[in-house]
């Protein structure tokens, strides 16, 4: 006999053992079921106790798997005893749903104007760091943003709305203020400006399908496209590749956010985000990265929490 073979005697012995165990289990199960359901004197409560509860360990062991499974199923489906053993873990407390915030064309344009003014504030800060031609470019781009804000204000008025004449508070608080605190060098300022231009471009682009009037979509992209041009020029100043793939962007340290910038301490030069003049075949609605003061910032286009309602 090899190791893989089993002798006939061994098989017979095992079969007899199985038969005996089965016979015992069946008799015990039949007894329980008869006691519960065939004896008319047995009350419903007694029947339930027999199936569900009060099982001594010995009986539990002898009534077999079927009864155990049935009891488990019934227990799971039955009413919970609030004072008893079934814990209420997992039941969430009642909550009140947040009211949906509707946006209109005017709100989107007010938001755009507010972002333009935040961009102006960013360039104001950058002008304190930049020198030479880079400073001149920043000053010029700031003038563009001022014009964009004025154009958006004008449209808001035409729509019967009230222009939003200050910078975007959510963007300022969560993104701009902490980012500007990190700006130390001209490169920091240009990196941040590049990211903000991308954020502006992508915010306008995201607004296009949300605006209800086609002419407003066109107006938005006469500006959004210029923000993309700004970003392209700043990228080339920073020394960018011409037309690389988005997939080549370094993944290290990059995290996505909804509205606020996240910071990730950069360990080495390898994590410097690549500056792309042309990000790919299509303008992405993606977050932009900037290495400012040794920290990698990830800044997303404006979302509903940052709208100027």
């Amino acid at each position, binding site marked *: 006999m090899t190791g893989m073979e089993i002798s006939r005697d061994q098989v017979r012995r095992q079969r007899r053992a199985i038969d005996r165990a089965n016979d015992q289990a069946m008799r015990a199960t039949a007894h329980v079921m008869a006691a519960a359901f065939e004896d008319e004197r047995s009350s419903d409560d007694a029947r339930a106790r027999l199936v569900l509860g009060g099982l001594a360990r010995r009986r539990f062991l002898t009534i077999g798997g079927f009864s155990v499974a049935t009891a488990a199923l019934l227990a799971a489906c039955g009413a919970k005893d609030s004072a008893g053993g079934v814990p209420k873990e997992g039941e969430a407390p009642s909550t009140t749903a947040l009211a949906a915030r509707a946006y209109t064309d005017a709100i989107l344009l007010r938001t755009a104007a507010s972002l333009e003014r935040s961009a102006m504030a960013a360039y104001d800060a950058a002008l304190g760091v930049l020198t030479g031609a880079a400073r001149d470019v920043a000053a010029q781009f700031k003038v563009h943003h001022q014009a964009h804000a004025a154009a958006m204000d004008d*449209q808001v008025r035409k729509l019967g709305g009230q222009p939003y004449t200050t910078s975007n508070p959510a963007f300022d608080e969560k993104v701009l203020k902490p980012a500007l605190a990190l700006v130390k060098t001209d490169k920091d300022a240009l990196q941040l400006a590049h990211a903000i231009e991308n954020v502006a471009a992508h915010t306008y682009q995201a607004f296009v399908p949300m605006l209800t009037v086609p*002419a407003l979509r*066109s107006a938005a992209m006469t500006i959004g496209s210029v923000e993309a041009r700004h970003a392209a020029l700043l990228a080339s100043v920073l020394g960018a590749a011409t037309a690389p793939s988005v997939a080549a962007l370094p993944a290290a340290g990059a995290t996505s956010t909804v509205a606020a910038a996240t910071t990730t301490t950069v360990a080495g030069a390898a994590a410097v985000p690549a500056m792309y003049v042309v990000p790919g075949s299509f303008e992405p609605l993606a977050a932009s990265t900037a290495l400012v003061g040794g920290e990698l910032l990830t800044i997303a286009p404006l979302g509903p929490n940052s709208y100027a309602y």
Partner: protein
Amino acid sequence: MDVTRLRRLLREVDDEHRDTMQTVTDELSAAAHAASRRAFLGGSLAIGGGAAVAVLGPLAGVAAAADATTTTAAPKPPQAADLALLAFAQSLELAAVQVYAAAAATGKLAPEVVTVANTFGRHHREHAQAIAGLAGKAATGVANPKLVKEYGDKVAAAKSQADVLTIAFQLETAAAATYAYALSAILGTNPAATIASIQPIEARHAVVLGQVLGRPLIDLAPSFEPNALRDAIDPTKYPVQG
């Protein structure tokens, strides 16, 4: 970008910015108030198979915008009136693919510039594919013949790399303006979103080419992207054939 050049270019920007801003403001103001300017073509644009689809002007349907107190949800899919513009846009993109292929084949471009031309050509091919997905049967899949002829002839006559790149720069600049203009006419939000993802890329292409050419900053970053028909490629003058 060369720092000295930036300084020089910056001086030219201010006047242009004010002019353009005024133009855009005037345009939008007119859009909101001139009900009579509903259609700039007033006709139809022939597309493949002889089908004719009306092309509305960029200001069509905008007249009531200023006074609107309630808004109606914009349709998502391309509307019937969008199909002709999408078919035209596809033909424009396919023409750009051919122009870049011809440019790369001139032998006048430096190797790294050939790489740029090939990359931009690929971008345009992908734009054409995306637009075809929206236009469906209206998309002809044929490069715009008049654009191919016009720009192809210019490329063939180019004597230098700068000549070739100037042609590409003009095409990209016009394409960006064409899409800015087209967004005024496109009704469906899905095609509008796609065009809005393509238009900034054409603008970025123009920036790259303009930098290589040493164009003034005013050409690389105007304060507003032109969206008037005079700056765009007029669909009625460059009919689609399929």
